[in-house]
């Protein structure tokens, strides 16, 4: 069954989510939203999924949700970065100099706090280029780890792109290649990454393609739930049954 890059990333992310986890999804995050809803439909029926913008939001504002996160009540959150460095630090602010940027990006939203607090953070990035994975960030919007004097439960799980998955090494936390998208070679990923990936003692595996069941539930039940939150993505971000026939 054919699938697109979004669907591959959604399925890869969904498989990481565990039953019973409290999962939060922020603004402008259609892929994580789809992944969380897909996991709940499949193997994580008891996950609590809170997608910002959903109709039956139980919290008073986003503030009570961020309070939940600050007090350690959120297991999973998703972040992205215009730039992601070799340690999973992220930049959502500027390309170029902060005071006179070449490109001014929308800004960090909650990343500088939530990255510290969600027990497991997944980074996602819909393109994988050397510019997007530089050696040095133009601005440090948030950091993947902290010194011992910071009460920080939050850890980076991995970086998900259409080319594969990078994960922090268990030594220094430098990103290493963990998984390849079907048809992608390790060299190709290194060529498209601006920093040198850490050596992975275990060779990367190739991601299982999205299954027929995953794609079917994603394109039907999950698409339906996404329509109100991400009308554009629901309509064009996922393949339609006719596209693949």
């Amino acid at each position: 069954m054919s699938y697109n890059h979004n669907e591959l990333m959604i399925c890869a992310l969904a498989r990481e989510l565990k039953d019973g986890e409290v999962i939060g999804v922020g603004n402008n995050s259609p892929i994580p939203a789809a992944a969380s809803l897909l996991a709940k439909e499949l193997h994580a029926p008891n996950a609590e999924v809170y997608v910002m913008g959903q109709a039956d939001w139980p919290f008073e504002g986003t503030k009570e949700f961020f309070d939940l996160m600050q007090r350690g009540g959120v297991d999973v959150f998703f972040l992205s970065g215009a730039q992601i460095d070799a340690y999973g630090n992220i930049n959502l602010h500027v390309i170029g100099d902060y005071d006179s940027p070449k490109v001014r990006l929308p800004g960090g939203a909650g990343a500088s706090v939530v990255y510290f607090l969600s027990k497991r953070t997944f980074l996602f990035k819909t393109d994988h280029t050397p510019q997007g994975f530089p050696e040095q960030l133009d601005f440090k919007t948030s950091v993947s780890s902290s010194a011992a004097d910071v009460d920080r439960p939050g850890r980076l799980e991995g970086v998900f792109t259409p080319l594969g998955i990078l994960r922090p090494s268990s030594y220094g936390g430098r990103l290493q290649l963990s998984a390849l998208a079907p048809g992608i070679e390790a060299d190709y990923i290194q060529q498209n990454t601006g920093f040198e990936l850490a050596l992975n003692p275990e060779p990367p595996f190739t991601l299982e393609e999205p299954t027929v069941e995953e794609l079917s539930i994603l394109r039907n039940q999950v698409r339906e739930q996404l329509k109100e939150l991400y009308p554009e993505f629901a309509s064009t971000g996922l393949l339609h049954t006719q596209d693949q026939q």
Partner: protein
Amino acid sequence: MTDKFTTLQQAVEWVSDGMVVAISGNMDMSPMSFIRELIKAGKKNIQLICIGSSGINADILLGSDSLRSVEFSQISLGEFGFAPHFRRRLEEGSIETKEHACPALFSAIQAGAMGIPFIPVRGLLETDYMNIRTDFIRINNPYNVEQSVAIVPSIRPDLAIFHAFKADRKGNVVAHSLQNNRILAQAAVKTIVTVEEIVTEQELASSQGSRIPSTYISAIVHAPHGAHPTTCPGYYPADADHIRGYVKAASSPTDFQHYLDSYETPTTGRTDTVPAHSIETKEVGV
């Protein structure tokens, strides 16, 4: 009936030169009719605070010459892409900015509502926020000397403005549950609310959403379609064509001025799935 009901024209007169004005909303539930009136009235030197990730509400103000500065955590048009005026003004360096982080910003608003000068916030340490915000301070946790924590100053805007679904005649309001208007209304010295409709106390009491009592609200404006072109869930979706037109108009000052001048409030646009609520308009003036 409360005497809090007023008109848009009168409400914008509460904004004076140099005031710190907080506005909630993004591509949902932005108080757009108020903002357009503000621009039309030629208000200047506003110190804008965007309460949470913002969208066209902040961008349209950045396209006008109403602002002295903007405090924000993120400004984007969501599925419609970059916020054009935001991007241009910041790339030019032609606006004073203060960057905040959503959870820290809401904590600062909570601290404002509590009358305390600052509040600790998790996270932030060793990010570049600590460099660009000299008023985000790293301190030792007095209860655990081996721990550091960031503190941020509290926020008490002079005026807060938000769009809500409904008000009753006593001035109680039901707003969107995703917005932080209840603490915002407490933190602000004065609060103006625009609402889609005025309903009975009974209907308000059984409405879903964030309830904000009259005591936290200074003035209410009955403004149907007040969030247009942003979404007002249950009333109307985002007006995608309009927003694409806005983005196009943002590319030149002339086009943008024409966009502002030719704006017309939609006369229809409620979603068919929502039963028509009766809107009472008499008596709503001051």
